[in-house]
């Protein structure tokens, strides 16, 4: 055990930025960027509407199309769709690893992407958000679903705690966006609802047209052996879940249990 005596370690290694989990609906609204130091090489952060800053992000979804939009050199643009919207992912020669990895993706395919968010002003003055990937990995539907769940959890957490845990960014975000981002709790809830529907392995008819072709991957993935941790019977159980039941869980007033919901609301006012 030669390594046991290596007490001297590099101590001033800059800490790596954590990859924030964020849905497309929120990231695409995160148009305000800032730095925490004058240093040219200081990291650029986006202010998430839910009140935290993000430099690195971790996203997942379905790649629905990839197009080379480069004029001279290869410059790939990928549409990556999550339950709440579309991430626009661009990779060129400076993202060599990601570019190589994207070339191998055959839409539709589930991927996880680690990268950074980038904003740019369009001619009409509005700000668009895109993703610059560092790495792209093809994943199974279980991994993608776990991301949806985790991202919903982080989003809800931010909505509830960012005001205390990152008050500066929360204040900044409120000033910049004119609201407190709490509506993204609904987005998280919507994504979770979508997860329950996805768990049925049925085509989701009323969702984005981009997502229609997911069903092939849904069926293929569990058979690859390595990712078979989800009990098949759970899927059967989800399938029997009625729409009313779903709505009840998600607090949809049109889905029944109105009295209970309003009683609950009232008790809080």
């Amino acid at each position, binding site marked *: *055990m030669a*390594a*046991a005596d290596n*007490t001297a*370690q590099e101590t001033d290694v800059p*800490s790596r930025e*954590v*990859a*924030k989990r964020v849905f497309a*609906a929120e990231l695409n609204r995160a148009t305000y960027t800032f730095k925490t130091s004058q240093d040219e090489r200081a990291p650029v952060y986006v202010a998430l509407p839910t009140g935290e800053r993000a430099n690195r992000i971790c996203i997942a979804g379905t790649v629905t199309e990839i197009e080379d939009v480069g004029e001279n050199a290869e410059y790939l643009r990928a549409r990556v769709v999550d*339950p*709440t919207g579309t991430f626009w992912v661009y990779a060129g020669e400076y993202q060599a*690893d990601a570019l190589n*990895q994207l070339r191998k993706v055959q839409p539709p395919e589930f991927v*996880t*992407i*680690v990268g950074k968010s980038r904003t740019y002003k369009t001619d009409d003055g509005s700000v668009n958000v895109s993703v610059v990937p560092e*790495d792209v*990995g*093809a994943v199974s539907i*279980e*991994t993608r679903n*776990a*991301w949806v*769940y*985790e991202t919903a*959890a982080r989003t*809800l957490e931010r909505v509830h705690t960012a005001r205390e845990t990152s008050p500066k960014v929360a204040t900044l975000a*409120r000033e910049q966006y*004119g*609201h*407190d981002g*709490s*509506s993204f*709790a*609904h*987005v998280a*809830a*919507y994504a979770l609802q979508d*997860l*329950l529907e996805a*768990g049925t392995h049925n085509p989701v008819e009323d969702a*984005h047209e981009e997502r229609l072709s997911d069903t092939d991957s849904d069926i293929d993935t569990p058979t690859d052996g*390595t990712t078979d*941790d*989800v*009990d098949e019977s*759970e899927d059967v*159980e*989800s399938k029997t*879940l009625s729409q009313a039941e779903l*709505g009840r869980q*998600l*607090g*949809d*007033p*049109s889905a029944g249990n109105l009295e209970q919901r309003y009683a*609950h*609301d009232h008790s*809080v006012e």
Partner: protein
Amino acid sequence: MNSLREDARLLHEQVGPHLPEDCADDYDVDAIETLFDSYVNTYRVPRGAAFDSVRNHVLREAGVDTDSFWASVRDDDQGTADDPLPLAECIIDGAWVTVRAKIVELWEPRTDSIHQVGLIGDESGRMKFVAWSKSNPPVLEEGTTYTFKNVVVDEYDENYSLKINSRSEIVEHAGDSPEAVNTVGTKTTVYEGVFVAMQSQSGLIRRCTDPECTRVIQQGECSEHGENEGKYDLRIKGVLDNGESVQECLFTAGMTEAVVGINLEEAMQMASDALDISVVERRLTEQLIGHRFTVEGPLLGRYLLVDEVSEVPGRVFSQGYQTAVEGLLSEYDYDGPGLTVENIDDLPQTYDVPVAAGKN
């Protein structure tokens, strides 16, 4: 606040057992109370300071060995011979502790001032120990269990070790005695996260062929031993990220095979087919990025040395999607409007209005 009498009784309890017999009567509770009274009321010493002053006075006058007195006072909270402190709890720099552990490994001391150095272990974990030559410690044998009384915890860079000094007492235990440590545990850390980055010098690497050296060589040269063919090895240095923190992880060749199903021979074959050693790293990256792992192992500096790994993408759903989702929403008392994908873009924007019933 205690009365002087109570303070006197407390102090007597502490110093009483250490007083030599011939002056035990000179320092009974009454005598100590009188001393307190004189310090506090006559000489106006604050109560807190008086306690320490009276104690030092008594120890000095009675000729008590202060080092062994303090060692035994500390002993009370830091393990005893009957109830030794687990190694995993030896994490207070400078604490005097009593532990019971087996010598796992002895290393070659680097200087003459060190009598023995190595690794000891009990059920809770392993730790480095150092016995200084000047303290005349007994010779310890690998594989034997000892009780180490009055050894001192030393911390350097968040790594803890035990120092055996001249006041330490070492008791050997027979291998078949109930005290003998059978299984040595490891202090391990568990981390779950998404594999977000492969670090350089991963995949197929070459290590210096010098038997004492395990450095990775680059461009056919070891920084210590010069030009060198190198011996192939397979490993992963990568980063897991759970959205709140990152953890750098080191996978040995065995763990690399466990996680990606490629062993050293296959990796060497891949490299020779491609005439390029870096294909291995690219292949590993491709297989790992974006996947979710739970790893377990001891921490070595910044790295978690993985000795168990599993890919469990759907672990949060082990009770079913519905249970997981219901659990999460109720955790936040979520009771908002149902959304459809059409109206996500027209979200009702709020300003300082709690979205969930119950709390904000």
